[in-house]
């Protein structure tokens, strides 16, 4: 089931999963530039693409930014695929420590 989220940084709204089952990774658009200054990323820029280490293992998402709010289920703090990712990373870290 897909859920609709609002990014608290750029106020963009999106579904966390596409109809084909692929997760959707939201990335805040850059701030518009003008003649005085170029385009730049927001300070609280959110990027949900996965971050990989040197061995191509997923270690998190690139930037949490200002967070998100779920518009369709208030119990969800973030897209479920991201929560599952973090749980798996924590488990792998525990296994490595053990």
């Amino acid at each position, binding site marked *: 089931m897909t859920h609709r989220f609002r*990014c608290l940084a750029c106020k963009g*709204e999106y579904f966390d999963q596409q109809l084909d*089952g*692929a997760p959707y*990774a939201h990335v805040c*658009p850059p701030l*518009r530039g003008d003649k005085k200054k170029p385009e730049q990323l927001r300070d609280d820029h959110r990027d949900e693409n*996965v971050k990989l280490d040197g061995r191509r293992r*997923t270690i998190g998402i690139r930037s949490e930014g200002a967070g998100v709010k779920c518009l369709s289920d208030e119990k969800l703090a973030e897209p479920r*695929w991201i929560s599952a990712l973090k749980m798996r990373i924590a488990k792998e870290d525990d296994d490595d420590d053990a």
Partner: protein
Amino acid sequence: MAPTFPSGEDALKRSPGAEVTLDVQHSAPPTATYITKDDQLGIMIACSSQPAFGVQVNMRILLPSGKIVQSVWNVQPIQTRTGQTFFYPLPEGFLLSAAVTTPFVNQPRSTFCELILYRGANLNNLQNQILCSGYPAGYQVLSWPLGVNTNSLDTVGNIRSIVGTTPGAGAEISETVPVGAQWFLLAIEFGLTASATVATRVPQVIFDDGTNIFAQVVSPVNVTASSSIGLAFAIGLNTGSNVLGVANNSIPNNLKLMPSWRIRTNTGSLQAADQYSSPKYVVEEWLLP
């Protein structure tokens, strides 16, 4: 319909069971792939869906005793698009055949798989042979020794329809190619509703690598205050003015987009209360495991 036999003999009736005994002593190997106890099977799998679709790997191995055994592994990756390799020990013997199937109905070409023979322990393994590689899906089974191997890029990709982010008021559309994917944009459509602030908005679609813009396509029409328009860009589309509230333009053909590259709008004189709709776009996607 019952089979007919021109010779008048039904071969199955004359040979109901195994009547051939294999001579495994001093015999020529049936295949060139002999597996020792130091060898392992590596199953590399990458999937764009979440939860990921798994694969089933079937192998037939001729043991030194002359017995043929069937092994089956069910593997499901836990990462999205990024390739994961699972290692399994193998018995000593001759590898006769291998096949990779997806037992679940999935989006064609959303799962890429490679079967690899490794030698050595996991951390120091050496890849010795790629048995088969490609996108298994439904009845499209990967197989060895008879099968066609493809890498993840040199084949038809997965056609995906995506609904992107509805930007906030006064913000541009920006869609980023995800990690582990290569895209080919086929078409994109979105709408712009202009506020009452007097200004001439000039929308354009731009493609960049995260830093440098390398292609721009301008809308054939501008948008004035308190008006709205649908904008459709696709390969091979003729430039069209505002007909029934929609304007068209063509986008570059064969423009492959790498991870973290972007498809976005850049609108001249965009006002704070102007609102873009969510972009709807179709891409051909290949996995980069």
